[in-house]
């Protein structure tokens, strides 16, 4: 995902001593804020899925779901199936979320 790619890039830059770790933290925080805004406002694509909830967990304000035999539908025409997916979700307002 974008966030992981950014984190990797920042780690490389820190490793080659081109930026400070504090600057990297500032960049990550900025990224978190902007990605939250963009996902909320700008992204219009829709997706729905149906499946069987195998397991759920809620601890430290983080939800983890394991869903089996899912059927995804995107924008009406795109459809595909998956055997098992794992969803990790946390509160949108939390700025420290990864």
């Amino acid at each position, binding site marked *: 995902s974008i966030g992981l790619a950014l984190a990797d890039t920042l780690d490389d830059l820190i490793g080659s001593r081109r930026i400070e770790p504090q600057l990297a933290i500032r960049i990550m925080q900025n990224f978190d804020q902007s990605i939250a805004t963009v996902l909320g406002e700008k992204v219009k694509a829709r997706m729905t899925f149906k499946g069987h909830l195998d*397991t*759920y*967990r*809620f*601890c*430290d*304000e983080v939800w983890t779901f394991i869903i089996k035999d899912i059927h995804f539908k995107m924008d009406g025409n795109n459809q595909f199936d998956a055997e098992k997916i794992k969803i990790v979700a946390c509160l949108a307002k939390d700025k420290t979320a990864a």
Partner: protein
Amino acid sequence: MSPDTSRSNTPNSREPIPTTPLPIHGPTISNIVCGAHLNCLFDLHHIALSARNVMYNPKRFPAAVIRHRRPKATGLVFATGKLQVLGCRSVSDAVLACRRFARMLQKLGYQPRLEDFVVQNIVANADTRMLIRLEGLQYAHPAFCRYEPEIFPGLVYSIMEPKMTVLVFAGGKLVLLGAKNEGDLEKAVKVLYPVLTLFRRS
């Protein structure tokens, strides 16, 4: 049988106890709440991370809520070792569910010992198959009834012996709350049914 005006709402003791089954559907148990002590301290955070189907939100409620599928039951596990099991439809299921929760916690590394299993509340439904005049019932037994149709369409009838609450609805359905065992449910229905037939809407 004349309406009871005395404090107790049990039938007159000189009346023979009816042996024919009452024409009632039920009572069918819909929920049992029971408590047990597992005699073991728990790290709820660790349980929430290792067990499946757990919800733990200490800011809202100090217990881990774990759900099982067979028998379908919800368990509240407290850090002190107390366990509450909700949602079972029979006492044997409730005992089995308690054992399953204890076994699950044992597999996580604790040493629970299931003790002090107590059924705290049984909720049941029954259908008298007749229409009931709730206003008439409230007028006759004001000490036992609470009926405010604008707030809730059911009449809340408090039975003294066994100490229970019954929600009586005009369509004839009953919801029995507060029973501690199945015998209490049967007794409550036997006490209440004769009273209700007096207020049948013809």
